[in-house]
């Protein structure tokens, strides 16, 4: 595919103003193997991601595929033995550790996946308001009351401790802590694990409302159904690589509009779509990519797949990392 063709297509599918632009990010970890030898684990590789204002981007991957690290990388809270390479831009400015620390808790907010992120010894209200000077406190308090109303929380919850909340309330409190700072970009890390339909519905509605207010949302999840319900586009992770970026509406019918064979497998494995069995497992932390990462499980591979890993290429505004799909579109 030639350069200007790609450019044309980009113009066609032009999304609203880009908020976050992640290009070619890699995350690796240092670990001691035996004795004094240090090994490097490449956990996330060549990651590209764009999030626009008012857009919900779902990042879909199984546990261990590196998707949570993406959230930590954006917020600048990766652990000490990790290394982040590549470039991130926020509103056109390069997002380095210093800017991340400035924006974290200001323009970028994290909705964490569990209660563990709340301080068990601190009242809910104090945690939501955070560490502010006295003159700002009143304003924040008013803001909190408003947010509580939006999330159907009683006002007196502010005086409770985390252990006194039910699961549903805790989730809404976690949302409140991120909304008090009025963020432009929200990263939600598995906000719906093991929930029933009703609370999932509720959580997703909150995310939708946030997006309608013009915020950019990254929804990190392993649950394809959750992703499809709210997202504008879905980014699929496999073994640390993005293998496909597709529009949400393509996750429908018999899944023919999905590009990568793994994405189709995921879709068809859902109970309502046939509960179809696909063998094999996702390789973790591979060092050498001398073949396509999906080669061992793929049923449609061609000769080329056995000796090089494909790049992520753009096709009709979607992206895919697969030689077979590439070939079929070139014809």
């Amino acid at each position, binding site marked *: 595919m030639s350069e200007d063709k790609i450019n044309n297509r980009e113009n066609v599918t032009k999304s609203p103003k880009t908020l976050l632009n992640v290009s070619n990010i890699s995350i690796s970890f240092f670990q001691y193997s035996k004795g004094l030898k240090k090994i490097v684990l490449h956990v996330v590789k060549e990651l590209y991601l764009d999030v626009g204002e008012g857009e919900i981007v779902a990042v879909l991957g199984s546990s261990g595929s590196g998707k949570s690290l993406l959230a930590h990388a954006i917020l600048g809270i990766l652990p*000490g033995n990790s290394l982040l390479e590549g470039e991130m831009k926020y509103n056109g400015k390069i997002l380095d550790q210093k800017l991340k620390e400035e924006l974290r808790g200001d323009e970028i907010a994290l909705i964490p996946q569990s209660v563990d992120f709340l301080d068990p010894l601190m009242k809910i209200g104090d945690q939501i308001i955070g560490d502010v000077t006295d003159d700002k406190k009143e304003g924040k308090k008013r803001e909190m009351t408003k947010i509580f109303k939006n999330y159907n929380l009683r006002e007196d919850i502010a005086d409770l401790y985390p252990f006194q909340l039910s699961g549903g309330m805790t989730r809404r409190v976690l949302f409140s802590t991120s909304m008090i700072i009025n963020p432009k970009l929200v990263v939600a890390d598995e906000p719906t694990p093991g929930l029933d339909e009703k609370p999932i519905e509720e959580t997703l509605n909150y995310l939708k409302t946030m997006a309608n207010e013009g915020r950019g949302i990254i929804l990190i999840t392993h649950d394809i159904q959750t992703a499809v319900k709210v997202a504008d586009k879905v980014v699929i992770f496999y073994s640390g690589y993005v293998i496909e970026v597709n529009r949400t509406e393509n996750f429908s019918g018999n899944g023919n509009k999905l590009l990568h064979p793994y994405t189709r497998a995921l879709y068809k494995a859902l109970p309502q779509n046939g509960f179809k069995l696909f063998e094999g497992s996702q390789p973790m932390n591979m060092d050498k990519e001398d073949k396509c990462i999906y080669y061992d499980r793929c049923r449609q591979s061609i000769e080329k797949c056995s000796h090089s890993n494909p790049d992520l290429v753009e096709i009709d505004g979607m992206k895919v990392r697969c030689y077979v799909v590439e070939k079929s579109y070139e014809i």
Partner: protein
Amino acid sequence: MSFDKERFKSPYSFLFGNMNLRTKTLLIISLVGFVLLAIAINSFFINVDNITTNFAIKNSQPSLQHPFGTDWMGRDMFSRTIKGLGLSIVIGGLASILSAIIAVFLGLSSTLGRYFDHAVNSMTDLFLSIPHILLIILVSISLGGGISGIVVGISLTHWIPLTRVLRAEIKQINTSTYVKLSKNFGRTKLWIAKNHLLPLLIPQIVVGTILVFPHAIMHEASVTFLGFGLSPHEPAIGIILAESMKYLSNGSWWLAFFPGLSLLIIVLLFDLIGDNLQKLLDPTQANE
């Protein structure tokens, strides 16, 4: 954005080059361990009777021949100090090992049942409420003083922190899902203690034991200094320091200065080993 590569460099890189943290930590531990061992072994070969009395050079200032000076009987203070430090290390070693044994015993018995747990808990509270020094002096005197008295006295007062750590740790491991699962697979309490608990506790025990060392040494020296510990004819640092008091007013500063400084350095070295071991064994720091 060539990101944060700087973060991986340690501030001591001029000293250790590009060594990774684990190599560095091991190097520090073995160097310090070597120094301590050398002192202990050397002191063993210094015979007190060979530290000759020579009144011709009594109270001489530090010189090349006598780096730590000589005392009022003309004895070489360097030899006396090394001998004293050796004794301190031996006493510290015995006391830490003994207190670790007490701690492991109490820690494990606290899991036997609610009453055992209560008993251990009240015992720690009781011992915490009595000042260390007082208890050491009491035990030491009632056992007739000497090395055994002081070792028992120190051991009986220094098992508390490790016992508390172990008790908390055991409680936590015992509530973990994998221990409950183990019971469901029909494993006995003893099997679980041996296979699940002990391997997870060993790092705590090792670090806890090493960290008792400096306390033990300091306490031994101070009790001896006060005259309740080792008898005056023992070549202990506490004795040396006590004697030096009489001559300090004459301007013989080296009699107190060098032995005191050496004692401090030994204590700091043990602390260094303890901290570095902790770094090595603590999983949260292990990969940095």
